[in-house]
């Protein structure tokens, strides 16, 4: 994987980690953007537009690992990459996943789609560049 986020500031109580189930042996680099993948409370790597964000992986999972629980950071400021060529970030506006660990402006103007929003951009950046995003998931 590439373009993992870099957490700059943990907010809330140490980033308000929430425990999710993951597949045993799933390859998940630390600081990957994770999606809600199955019921109940199961997460996997976020990869495409429309994924519902669960949080940022707080540790690494290797193919040979057998653990099936992982804490995901849900409240922090992080450096996140805008999708190459097609992505960007606009100061103050929400961003969503459009590729693995990369984001673009969120364009889904409904309450139902708010789960796709990773966070609010704290700076304006061009495609392929990284910028700060305020992440505060849930609710």
């Amino acid at each position, binding site marked *: 994987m590439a373009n993992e986020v870099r957490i700059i500031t943990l907010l809330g109580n140490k980033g*308000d980690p929430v425990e999710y189930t993951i597949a045993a042996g799933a390859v998940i680099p630390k600081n990957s953007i994770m999606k809600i993948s199955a019921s*109940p*409370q199961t997460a996997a790597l976020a990869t495409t537009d429309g994924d519902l964000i669960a949080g940022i992986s707080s540790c690494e999972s290797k193919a040979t690992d057998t653990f099936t629980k992982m804490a995901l950071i849900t409240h922090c400021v992080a450096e996140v990459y805008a999708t190459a060529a097609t992505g960007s970030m606009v100061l103050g506006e929400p961003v969503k996943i459009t590729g693995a660990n990369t984001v673009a402006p969120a364009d889904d103007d409904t*309450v139902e789609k708010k789960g796709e929003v990773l966070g609010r951009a704290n700076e304006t950046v061009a495609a392929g560049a990284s910028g700060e995003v305020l992440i505060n*998931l849930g*609710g």
Partner: protein
Amino acid sequence: MANEATITTLLGKYGNPVEYTVADGTAIPKGSLMVMDSSPQTAKISAAAGDFFVGIANSEKKANDGKTKMAVITKCIAEITTKGGGSAVLGAPVHIDGVNLVDVATDDTCAGATLVVAQSLETLGASVKGAMFVNV
């Protein structure tokens, strides 16, 4: 009362409690889903669709016990019950639709966002309890 929420994980600082005024004459079981009642900053137990959710009652209040303030938990994972005929969809928001009950939120406006109780962490049918991520 029935169907009170069960908090399983406090997030933020002890669940980020916020103090609201409540009516002395009203009994409020711990775990009740609380909504805006009146101005300023007064809360009551949820009742129907359209209620503005404020948090989960952090303690029990008996009727006429003299208390007029209550802390409500605003950030946590909680087990919350769907209404009869209602449901919850994995990752989608839910809103109040009955006393301590929720259903899929369908309010496509910025104002409608304040009706949201939580993001469901499970897909649920009618009248069952499931994990939900509350962040008011």
